[in-house]
């Protein structure tokens, strides 16, 4: 099941399946580790959300989050 990233609740893990949008920021997100096949954890959902990406905390504006499709995983 694919869902937009911003539909995850706090503490949930997911695997990034697809990042769409402007190529330049898809590239930027990839540099920061948000790209296909990566595991992310939502630390704080919301308009500006807080993610755990490979042990790093990233904060991301909500509008962009919805263009990131993920597959929720349970650990």
């Amino acid at each position, binding site marked *: 099941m694919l869902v937009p990233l911003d539909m995850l609740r706090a503490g949930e893990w997911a695997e990034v399946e697809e990042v769409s949008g*402007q*190529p*330049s*920021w*898809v*590239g*930027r*997100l*990839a*540099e*920061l*580790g948000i*790209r*296909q096949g990566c595991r992310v954890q939502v*630390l*704080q959902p*919301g*308009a*500006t959300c*807080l993610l755990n990406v*490979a*042990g*790093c*905390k*990233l*904060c*991301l*504006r909500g*509008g*962009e989050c919805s263009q990131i499709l993920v597959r929720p995983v349970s650990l």
Partner: protein
Amino acid sequence: MPTATITVALVGNPNTGKSTLFNALSGLRQRVGNYPGVTVEMKKGQLTADGVNFELIDLPGTYSLAARSPDEMVAVDLLLGRRPEEPRPDVIVSIVDATNLDRHLYLTSQLLDLGVPVVVAVNMIDAAAAQGLTIDYEKLSTALGVPVVPIQANNGTGLPQLVRTIRQAAHERKIPQPVEFPFAFDEIIAHITKELSDQVPPVLVRRLLWDVGGYVEQWLLAEHGERLHHLLAKARDQLAAANCPVPAIEARTRFAWVRQAVAAAVTKPAGRPITWTDRIDAVLTHRWWGTLVFVAVMFVMFQSIFLWAQPLMDQIDAVREWLAQSVAEALPSGPLRALLVEGVIGGIGSVLVFLPQILILFAFIAVLEDCGYMARAAFLMDRIMSRCGLSGKSFIPLLSSVACAVPGIMATRVIENRRDRLATIVVAPLMSCSARLPVYVLLIGAFVARPGSPAWLPGLVLFAMYMIGFTVAPLVALALKRTLLRGAPPVFVMELPSYRRPKLTAVLRRMFDAGKAFVVRAGTIILAAMIIVWALLYFPYIDSNGDSYPARIEQAEEAAAATAERLKELQAIKNPTPEQQAELAELEDVAALPDKLNGQWKRQSLLGRVGLWMEPVFEPLGWDWKIGVAAMASFPAREVIVGTFGLLYDVGDVDPGLVLDPSTDEEGQAKVASLTRAVQEEWAKDPIRGPYGVPVALSIMVFFALCCQCGATLAVIQRETKNWLWPAFTFIYMTTLAYGGAMLTFQLGRLIVG
């Protein structure tokens, strides 16, 4: 004897301790390099070790070499030796965070493409050990194909080894092996390079192909036009067909390479331990607790700016006064003395008086940023700030501007997005700064807080004046982001770094840099503006009889001083006789003469004449030429209006500080009271300002709330944007806004009162 200089560029992600390493290596031998046309600054430092000179360049922190703006391109150009003012680096030091090699080595892999020897410095090995990571540096070096040195930059561990490795790398000139890309890719690169007639290095051709919409593409398309556009589109289609889609192929290939290297060299403990940072973050990024802590931190910060800066500012003022007095006594009266005392010393004083606020604010910013809190604050405030098209990073600069726009604008350096930064800079002067306070207090005291009016009214008016800034600034920001600074919504991605203890030397350095930048570069422009206004109010200083005003004022002052004793005696008499009354009236006139002459002089000065001539412009605002001149004279610095009002209303110069705190000084109290009275009396006689005193006062206050009457602010905007367009734009839009707002206030007020 040093034989040759080795140029070394330091490159790394933000928050890798790159600046700490730079400072540790170069100590105090630093300077700032500026580049024409861009707002970035790069720090340069020197180091001598074992008889070899090293020239270090600290590049701005970046996650990749994919340049999106001219600012980011400077770093790439510099690394490729394409900046004429800088030599190509002999060695690139790639600084990576030991606790997050997976991500940081991505940039390293891009650096390997540049054809320059690379040395990898793995920083924060202590934190990695604390997390249970073990790194085999030899295996890592083999996997990466370049030397790797473990360091702990904040205590100097590994630095001698790093310097030796850099020297050896510069000596050997071993070009690293770039990460391998699919064969289809290399072919296309070769083809495009040829099409561009070998003018562009292959590294940049790769960036052209990968960075869709990036700066290299913009730049080369502007140069080569349609033909390149087709070529690119075709090449990208070809790659997509060969299962190498752009831009995903770069991240995919590089991260695969990084993962291999890390897998070979790093042993991770099973499961990520909960770190200190996680525990603190549970509170500090919490929606409610975090916001509460943030409000408390901000309160402490501004309270300290007000509390600690005031005594220092008073001292600077005292020194200025003492200097002015000494010069006044040492020189004969005349234009030269007036220039030195009022223009130069007064001007320098008004520059330096900002310094305590700037230093204290930057001490806070440095501490909050170095310990990692600033990113949390920006995260918390982003929800609110995104409503007006800005990001969380704009919050602190805007809030700082309530104290003073000058440090506030300098604080926008933390905003990486150029459009956000410009929008923040341009609206920052709308926040009600502390220099507006004397103006508000004077006018509220004279017209709003009158006997019979409700006690809460003055407070409400003052609050309303502050609210003007708080509401107009976001609206202007939003309007700008929708028009002039429109662009793709910025990607707001921000890393929250681990908490770290700030270093005192780094904090002191930040304070010193900010103070120096302000005094040296903004100060000169403010000084020039102050001298111009001084001259406009000074010349011509000869009256219609050919006598000089300064000389007449001096005579009148001597006469007043000679009779001052007698005047006091007469004033003390409870029931004076008619003769005594007549003498009293006469002596009071003598005492008032210097101020009266000064008023006459200012009226016929150049600025005074312009004011008279421009009176029709001020009429819709309910102003007469005196208010107009006072407002114009206060364009370099708004607090000047209080003093100018004093001059024009014949009560002599009034120190704006006295308006806020008259209790300490009896003479000052009398002076403020007499200015308040003079303004009230004059206005009472006037057909417009008599019945409509309150609307006129409000119109002046609204004008001051919205207008950019601060040479320092404009100078700092110029300094920060490296462009005269932005200060000019700020000045024009704010003056227009102020004029419109003041007119609206007066006309509405007149309707209501009438």
